[in-house]
């Protein structure tokens, strides 16, 4: 017990100890996505689906949950089932064998939902493009809202994209603006 406490004190808080995302990688958020993401501004639950990645993209998704990145602090959770998810993060090109399961997962995720294509493979099949065993990038099968390029994207980049996505205009601010605008014209 004493050892455990000592270890914790000695380690201190490591959250946030990572280099910032390089500026040259740019994610893209579909215009409609930010509006969809309004609902999930405070809390976003993600289900990750691997449709044929090389597993480096998965490892970076896993890294998001470690104490250094700790995405829970941003209100992002990883769900165990697509039925509990607000967003699907899809990695890898869609293989012939995974096309069916991907579509099933999309169907079982409740609306409204976001789809995030993570990594070059998910966006354009990357190095596996054209292969007989690959049936195309994710957006060939389900609509994609956010694209995070990289092979694999660093965790810092993923966090940046997710933050940007949820920064959008909220219903509250819109309502507030409307109200304050009204008042301004009133007087």
């Amino acid at each position, binding site marked *: 017990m004493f050892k455990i406490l000592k270890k914790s004190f000695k380690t201190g808080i490591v959250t946030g100890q990572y280099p910032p995302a390089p500026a040259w990688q740019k994610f893209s958020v579909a215009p409609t996505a930010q509006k969809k993401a309004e609902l999930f501004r405070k809390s976003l639950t993600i289900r990750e689906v691997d449709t044929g990645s090389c597993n480096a993209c*998965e490892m970076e998704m896993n890294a998001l949950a*470690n104490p250094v*990145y700790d995405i829970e602090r941003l209100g992002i959770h990883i769900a165990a089932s697509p039925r509990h998810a607000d967003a699907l993060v899809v990695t890898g090109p869609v293989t012939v064998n995974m096309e069916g399961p991907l579509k099933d997962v999309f169907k079982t995720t409740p609306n409204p939902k976001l789809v995030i294509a993570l990594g070059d493979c998910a966006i354009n099949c990357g190095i596996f493009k054209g292969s007989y*065993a690959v049936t195309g990038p994710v957006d060939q099968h389900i609509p994609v809202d956010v694209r995070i390029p990289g092979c694999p994207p660093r965790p810092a980049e993923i966090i940046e994209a997710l933050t940007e996505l949820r920064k959008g205009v909220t219903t509250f601010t819109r309502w507030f603006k409307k109200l304050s605008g009204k008042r301004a014209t009133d007087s």
Partner: protein
Amino acid sequence: MEPVLNPVEHLQRIFGPAINRVSTNHGIPVVHVHTNQISAITRYIHTNEALRGTLSLLWAVDHRPRDVRYELWYLFTLGESKDWLIVSTDLLGEERLFESITPKIHAANWYEREIRDMFGLIAQGHPDLRRLVRHNHWPKGVHPLHKNFPWNSVLQWRQPPGSVDGHFIHGEGVFEVPVGPIHAGIIEPGHFRFTVAGEPIMHLDLQHFWKHRGVEKLFEQQTLSGGVALAERISGDTTLGHSLAYCQAVEMLWEIHVPRRARYLRSVFLELERLHNHIGDVGGICNDTAYALAHAHCSRLKERVMQLNDRLTGSRFLRGVNCVGGVDIDLSTDQFSELVAELEHIEKDFSELEQIIAVNASLIDRFESTGILKKQTAWDHGVVGVVGRASGIDRDLRRDRPFAAYDELSVRVAGSSHGDVRARVQVRVSEIHESIRLIREIQRMLPDGPLKGDRQVVPDSGAWALSAVEGWRGEILYFLMVGEHEQIHRCKVRDPSFVNWPAIQMAVIGNIIPDFPLVNKSFSLSYAGNDL
């Protein structure tokens, strides 16, 4: 007293007339035999006391258009000496049948099923010829590694996807628990079908290859110099192991002499890869017993190593480090000192954690005698790497077939004979310390010099090389055959996961399903590397 015969002479004495010819390639003896004798000869190699060969790799080559024949290759690692011996045989013309060796050699099971799927060659007498790579919805007659199958064909589905056939046990009180392909955690897709009666698992049926991306066919679209990026993306967590194995194969074909400094740097990076994966796995295994504290600390340490990778090479996964002929990334003396200083910290940190883990009774209770893989079972299945060493299979290519700079380093190979989860954790923990020790040793020995060697020859069409690397998971094998104009004719990739997956089916028998994630994590196998 009888003179000691070398393995080839030994076979010649017993099977003289069945052997067509004997040759040597890069020091590996190749015995070419009659097709109808293949079963007898392989069985002899497997069971003879003096040879005791384990099947390390079984693959086929379609020689068209150069030659109208298929060739089957059987690679054995011999018991005591750990030497390699290849047996090969031809299927001429349109001959598509060959004798299965699976009834005698378990390790051939998945290989023969794979060959049937990819080439349409049928292993007669195989006890379980279900489809392996091609799931049931794939059209009939599609064999992607046929030379006349276009790499970019679009497949027409035969039936809706998702249907798989398994092996079932029927009886009162027996029921089935299907899991996957999409799992609860962030892991790769695979389908597990458990048959249980009450709590204990009676049978586990694995259905993999969901992630099959056609890697071997994609290699055939590349020239020798162009395959590195693809090799790096076979299994992301083993980026360096795979790229190293690929580069070594090309270097053999081009007869490149890799400079000493490059060889040492390769060893450094390989140990770094081992380090971050092993640390992450120890944490992951603890997490599967719900011991979140150890997991948090381990994932923190793993992140430290990955950030270190990033600082040193510009890639958290060591991508772009290896190139054919040497390495693209150099480490300055300062960088090396930073590396060693950081590793000292990490080792100290990890040792403190070890002391906390080691005294946790509930954790040890979950680890001990869970998921036992017996030595005999491991040997029968040709299990390699960490899992093998934890079950008493004393094999490590860094010592047995030194590559990179390991011929000048003395690797202390970890091992255990218990074969349970605890043994696999212990082997990993020892290897973590050993990796750090090796990097420190390299710091003292690192020579100066160039980073890349030059190619010497243009290989003939049909030349081949076989290279092996002890990645963090185990033996990674690459068979590379060149065609016209340096185009890759065939590249057989074998990630250690491919041989260790079938063994997990044995290790879980008698355990309860809630222990399966623990057993699975203690094996820590790649789906991507297995599925290709």
